[in-house]
């Protein structure tokens, strides 16, 4: 099963290598990986998408926790979360296809961020389903180049309970 694991680490030289090395040394998969500093510049967040059965995921979480520079490990998939990724898609646009490309971009609320006489570069942000759907739609036009950032995820805040829920709680 696919999991999104958020790993908060010390923002130090070599930490990413240790985390990535742990995956390769133990034969775990990395489907995607993204790293950037957090609000606190001394820490970085590594978001890893991986697959494995429960036992493997448990080992991955424990092994990550063991790394001295790792401060916190959260399996986002266990919580309620939002995930996003950005893709830049360069499509071939023959004159008869330019309108079609623009329409597709519109439907997905994607932006055309660069254009040349023969191409558009489309930027899209969304969850995986949305990004994949857009790619599928653009495929027939001919995709010249595709770059994806890998996914990042954030936990949802607890919802404000609906009126019915809070009444049920009182009862």
């Amino acid at each position, binding site marked *: 099963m696919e999991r999104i694991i958020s790993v908060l680490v010390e923002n130090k030289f070599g930490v990413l*290598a240790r985390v990535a090395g742990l995956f390769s040394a133990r034969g775990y998969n990395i489907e995607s990986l993204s790293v950037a500093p957090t609000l606190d510049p001394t820490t970085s967040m590594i978001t890893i998408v991986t697959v494995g059965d429960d036992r493997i995921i448990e080992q991955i979480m424990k092994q990550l926790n063991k790394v*001295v520079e790792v401060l916190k490990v959260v399996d986002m998939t266990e919580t309620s979360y939002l995930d996003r990724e950005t893709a830049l898609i360069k499509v071939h646009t023959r004159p008869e296809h330019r309108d079609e490309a623009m329409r597709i971009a519109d439907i997905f609320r994607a932006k055309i961020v660069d254009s040349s006489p023969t191409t558009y570069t489309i930027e899209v942000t969304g969850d995986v389903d949305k990004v994949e759907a857009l790619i599928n739609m653009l495929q027939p036009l001919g995709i010249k180049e595709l770059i994806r950032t890998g996914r990042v995820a954030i936990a949802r805040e607890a919802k404000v309970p609906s009126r019915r829920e809070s009444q049920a709680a009182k009862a």
Partner: protein
Amino acid sequence: MKKTGAEIFVESLKQEGVKVLFGIPGGVVLKIFDVLHQQKDVEVVLTRHEQGAAHMAEGYAKATGKVGVALVTSGPGMTNIVTGLADAYMDSVPMVAFTGQVSTNLIGNDAFQEADNVGISRPCTKHNVLVKDVRDLARTIKEAFYIARTGRPGPVLVDIPKDVSTEKAEFKYPDKVNLRGYSPTYDGDKHQIKQAAEEILKAKKPVIYIGGGALFSDAAHEILEFAEMTQIPVTMTLMGLSAFPGGHSLSMGMLGMHGTYWSNMAMHYADLVIAVGARFDDRVTGKIPEFCPEARFVHIDIDPTSIRKNVEAHIPIVGDVKTVLRQLNVVLRSMDGNQREIKELRRPWQKQIAEWKQAHPLKYHQDEKSTKPQYVIEELYKLTHDKGIIATDVGQHQMWAAQYFKGAKPRTWLTSGGLGTMGFGFPAAIGAQKAYPGELVVCITSEGSFQMNLQELATAATYNLPVKIVLLNNGFHGMVRQWQDLFYDGRYASSYLGKIPDFVKLAGAYGIRGLRALKPAEVEPVLREGLKHKGPVLMDFPVYPFENCYPMIPAGAAQHEMVLEDPPKLTKAQRGRVAKKKPEEGEGVLPA
């Protein structure tokens, strides 16, 4: 006052209480060696190979429980300690290795003797750091020692560029470490402990399975109390040997591939296994789906990754062995004071184990002609008994030593288990001897392993470290030959060693006493004489070359499917074949 990095290095080591380090100098660490040379608190043992330095640091650490220290130069100095780091990582040995590095402005330029020390060692260290600024040096050293010895111990590498050792900074050794991502758990969860206690009192066929963690935690006393109070039989892994007295009536000796028949049978039929600082290695479990089919597991380990890695844990307890067992013993005492009842409850199980033991004891046949390796070890055990420290190399001799030595005191058994590093034993013995110059330290080895680090004979001679080497000389990579006997129709592919040095002469060349026992009757006198000798001594025991080590769980088999002796159809034919072929001209099993 400001100090140079080299001075800070030495001052920091003193603060850590380091008495000795093992190493070899080179360009980028000359400044550090120069400062070391001008003081007396930290002694330097100059080894003959960096691998030797790393294993000496391990031997020192295993014997004392303190952090072992090695110091080597950049490039080849560092790459030469990689085996030692990997060995220490697998066996959780607390060690800090300092490596020299080219100056910070040259890093990445393929400078002379540059290597990516941190990159190379990353997968085989618990932690590693490149120090880029002399102002970080003291703190980094403090953290390195702290990380190496706390939690699950392990090797830490600190890489020091040349300019960091010459530049100056204010020196103040920090009194605390502040590592927000690192805080091992020592106390066990109370609820889990209570549950474990309940199961322990109920169990009819329980086994205590002790691993290396019990030694790292210095928990021998707590284990003894736990086992005696509950009357549960105890088995130990190769790494756990000496944590519980081998001669105790509850001891079943080692379990696993070459463990005793009765401990493996007990595990197989157990209804409760209490794993204490052990990690369910494949040499212990055999075929996992058939491992302890009837048992529930209580698993005490300080490292959460060890729990549920290979085997389900019904009651996992993350924590330090000593602390958890203290907690557990208190609960057990409060829950049941009735010793007689417990003894009654356990009696049938103990009787069953005694029957297994009687049915298939450890055995070998010693005739008058050729010495059996087991015989040498038994004779050695008779002479040394509970005295001294044993270090072994890797192979059949290691397994026989594990079977026949019944260690009574913790930290008297030094061996390489996880990595199984041939060449570990002799330098490890030197390291232990350096820690305890007055104690008896014996290295049990064989010609294959010994030749992997025999250059350290010069170190033993130089520092007059009176290690007693007992070399079981079978002319083969015996353990490999045994597998070829059993699984490759006796084709001895590259396991026959051919020309073997005359070890007595070799010892003499290093100015060390050499002795040899050519027949069984000479074994005991040679051992006696060797052990009595004041300095280092090498005792060569040409032994029967085709002896195989039993019992054995063949690879892929389950615990209760132990092979107890050579399969009859294989033995004669194979040996005939080999005898016809060897020894060839100029070669021989016995030294020329």
